[in-house]
């Protein structure tokens, strides 16, 4: 049993498949959520999948450098900036429209 497990350590393919599935779950959330904050949370899942991808490539392909980890740090920083701006926009939006439902956000559409 232990021998079987030791011979089946996760390879790069396992990690990439995991990240692809995670990304697709986030994509599903973006497409089906109606609340804008729910969409933001789904986008965070997608960003996290991308960051894990970078670190996995770093670990399996270039272990003597830290380039992939630095890319992941940049992704995390950009996600933080994005979350700050998104929260400000949602609060302003709620103040004007009373809702953050993205189906209601159609003021650019010609009503007549």
């Amino acid at each position, binding site marked *: 049993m*232990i021998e079987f497990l030791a011979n089946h350590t996760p390879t790069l393919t396992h990690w990439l498949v995991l990240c692809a599935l995670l990304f697709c779950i986030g994509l599903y959330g973006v497409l089906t959520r109606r609340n804008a904050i729910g969409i933001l949370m789904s986008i965070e899942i997608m960003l996290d999948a991308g960051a894990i991808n970078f670190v996995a490539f770093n670990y399996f392909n270039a*272990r003597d450098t*830290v380039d992939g980890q*630095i890319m992941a740090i940049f992704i995390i920083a950009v996600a933080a900036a994005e979350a700050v*701006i998104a929260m400000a926009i949602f609060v302003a939006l709620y103040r004007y429209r009373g809702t953050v439902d993205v189906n209601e956000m159609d003021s650019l559409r010609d009503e007549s």
Partner: protein
Amino acid sequence: MMTEAAQTVVFYILAASVLGLSIAVVRVRRLLRAAVALMVMLTASAALYVLLGAEFLAGVQVLVYVGGIVVLIVFAIMLTRSSDLLEDVPSNLRRLMGVCVSSGFALIACGIVLTSHFPLSPSAVAPEDDSRAIGKALLDYGPNGYVLPFEIISLLLLAAAVGAIVIARRTPPSAQPFTSGGDLPPEAPHVISLSQRDKRQER
């Protein structure tokens, strides 16, 4: 050998929990519960980083994501009162289209990953100290350094902070530069009325 076996077991446990929790994030109707699931899912992915030998990154993930972004999301949920109202269930057509698009993308991505061959170089030795190597690379001026992106990211964070304040500000001064004399909605003035102000002073 025990280490490899433990690594395999931990990887599958963490992968299953991350996938399940992220499904909970996109499916749960109450947004606050989704935020809590997101928090646990990000912690589990920090554990995945540890499994990949990136301890510093795991710490950053817990600090920034779990401690910062999720708290910000919870703030946004509270401020927009999204927790009071149940999010209405997406229509069946919408759900079907979401499943089609995301499973199609998953099929294509997994097919590409499984059929392509990645040249591996597992013989390389990882740097002794993770955080030291990251710090050196971030402040390196050389061709492999990241000092320019590092500075740009700090500028981006500053711009994001200032922009968030400008966007979410409640009562802009009328003579504020770069705004058109206040952007309050005309029918809902957010100035505290005189009577309320008096009550507040009495308290």
